[in-house]
């Protein structure tokens, strides 16, 4: 910080009166008494309280051995799960950071080799537990690519509907925790309140509020329930008012602005070098969204825009997430209006189980059902990599099959794993209090990082 002026007066004013237009306190001579010989301007300043000797001001004279290593986590209210950071600080300024992950490692990739292809989504859905539909979608698309089948248009449209609603719920949690960590506690309550209406729709359709196991290779597991248009229509009607509420709370709030502007800056070159994808990349100004670049599941039929930021700071990432929620709701509306009729899963009985009622009638249906749920369907040998745009970035599934009913190797390219690599760089030379804001804005989900 050698280019910062070391004048404590301007430092104090900058930090305390962040951008306000009020005129600073100016002493006048009105009614003043004669200054005695001992009262120099410096002494007067000290008496007026304009000289502050706090040690958190940037100071180049701190010796190297005065660095302290502070451990943050793994059990910590603000690290978004079990992330551990070892932070080397000098006074209040962070010099180096080392993220230590692995506290949630579940061996999911090893478990995937034991589960059949039909059971795979139960595993993958618990990796990024805030965007379970996206995990299931990446896995199912990879299996379908190896099987060389296409799902019917209604299945593709239902997948788009569910994943876009999932994007909204995931961004709501990101904003809720982001707000709570920075201090806007109401954001936590608002975010989770909005989620409930969408989670009720998820529960009606898939049976679960989270970790749904709904998108499986071949389509989706069950059709949308009757009356789904009213539910989704209700969600679409409520949300604009609620999203405006968030803008009222945060968009021009001076405390929010001063805590998020120019904090945790990740430039576009740095983002590309660190393989960062998703809102963090778009906030840096790079126009890259997998839904537009490599479209999947019929998403090219819907019109939507990709919001971009400019500076790559915490504020831009927050704005990108809010705008992405508006765009997702636009997509949901288009899907709702244009939902095609037809089958919700592939008709191939070797892959998707027969309807339950048929099992009583047909021996063949019974045998198919039995084989599919005990042994599973076999996938021809091959390897493929399919990626979808999850709320955190590029969520990819690298699947290798050797002709058996279980994958030979299933690897998930986790967006949060790569996004975390930028933390040391984003936090260098910033204040300790900005750590929390930066981590929250990168929105890591530790299930994704550790798998």
């Amino acid at each position, binding site marked *: 910080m050698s280019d910062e002026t070391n004048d404590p007066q301007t430092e104090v004013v900058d930090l305390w009166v962040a951008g306000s237009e009020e005129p600073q306190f100016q002493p006048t001579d009105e009614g003043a008494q004669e200054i005695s010989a001992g009262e120099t301007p410096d002494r007067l300043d000290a008496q007026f309280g304009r000289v502050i000797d706090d040690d958190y001001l940037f100071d180049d004279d701190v010796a190297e051995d005065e660095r302290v290593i502070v451990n943050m986590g*793994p*059990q*910590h*209210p603000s690290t978004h*799960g*079990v992330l551990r950071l070892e932070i080397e600080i000098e006074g209040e300024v962070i010099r180096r950071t080392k993220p230590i992950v*692995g*506290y*949630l*490692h*579940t*061996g*999911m990739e*090893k*478990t995937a080799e034991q589960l059949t292809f039909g059971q795979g989504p*139960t*595993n993958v859905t*618990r990796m990024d*537990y*805030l965007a379970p539909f996206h995990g299931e979608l990446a896995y199912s698309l990879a299996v379908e690519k190896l099987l060389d089948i296409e799902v019917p248009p209604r299945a593709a449209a239902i997948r788009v509907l569910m994943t876009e609603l999932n994007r909204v719920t995931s961004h709501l*949690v990101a904003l809720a925790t982001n707000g709570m960590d920075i201090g806007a506690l109401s954001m*936590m*309550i608002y975010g*989770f*309140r909005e*989620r*409930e209406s969408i*989670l009720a729709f998820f529960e009606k359709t898939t049976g679960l*509020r*989270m*970790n749904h196991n709904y998108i499986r290779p071949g389509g989706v597991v069950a059709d949308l329930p009757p009356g789904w248009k009213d539910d989704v229509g209700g969600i679409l009607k409520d949300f604009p008012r609620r999203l405006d509420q968030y803008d009222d709370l945060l968009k021009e709030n001076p405390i929010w602005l001063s805590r998020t502007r120019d904090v945790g800056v990740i430039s576009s070159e740095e983002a590309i070098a660190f393989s960062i994808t998703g809102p963090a990349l778009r906030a840096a100004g790079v126009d890259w969204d997998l839904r537009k670049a490599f479209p999947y599941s019929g998403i090219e039929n819907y019109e939507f825009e990709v919001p971009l930021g400019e500076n790559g700071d915490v504020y831009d990432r927050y704005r990108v997430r809010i705008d992405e929620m508006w765009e997702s709701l636009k997509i949901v509306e288009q899907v709702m209006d244009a939902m095609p009729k037809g089958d919700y899963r592939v008709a191939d009985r070797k892959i998707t189980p027969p309807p339950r009622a048929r099992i009583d009638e047909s021996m063949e249906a019974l045998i198919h059902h039995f084989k599919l749920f005990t042994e599973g369907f076999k996938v021809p040998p091959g390897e493929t990599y399919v990626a979808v745009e999850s709320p955190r970035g590029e969520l990819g599934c690298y699947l290798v099959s050797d002709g058996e009913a279980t994958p030979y190797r299933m690897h998930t390219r986790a967006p949060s794993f790569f996004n975390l690599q930028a933390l040391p760089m984003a936090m260098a030379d910033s204040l300790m209090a900005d750590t929390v804001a930066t981590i929250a804005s990168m929105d890591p989900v*530790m*299930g994704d990082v*550790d798998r």
Partner: protein
Amino acid sequence: MATTPPGNLLMTTVERAANWSRTRSMWPATFGLACCAIEMMAAGAAHYDLARFGMEVFRASPRQADLMIVAGRVSQKMAPVLRQVYDQMPDPKWVISMGACASSGGMFNNYALVQGVDQIVPVDIYVPGCPPGPQSLMHGILTLHDKIMAGEIKR
């Protein structure tokens, strides 16, 4: 209400009063690990409100908490941390094991997870589910309250 054990009438009343005060403002420690943590946060949020049980303050420091809700899968790397946080909590303390992974390892019967958090800490209530909805978690919490009021857990 709960039956009181036979004994000194005066001491029994004090014990009931102590149990009552312990249940009515039991502060949980933040130990949300994975997906169950999201449902725990949802239980604390506006729709399913934990504040009506006096529990909306999730204390960050285990020294100020009574209840540890282990929400999520406990990996081998996290196990010593879990034990350390449990040891740092002052008596009386209770543990709720939330979800299938915390209760028994869940669907992940492999090298990476501790198969049930009761291998590490003594558990009072197991809440099944993957993840258990906020209603299940609240049922578990209220069951814990009942157990304490009934004097089944003597601390």
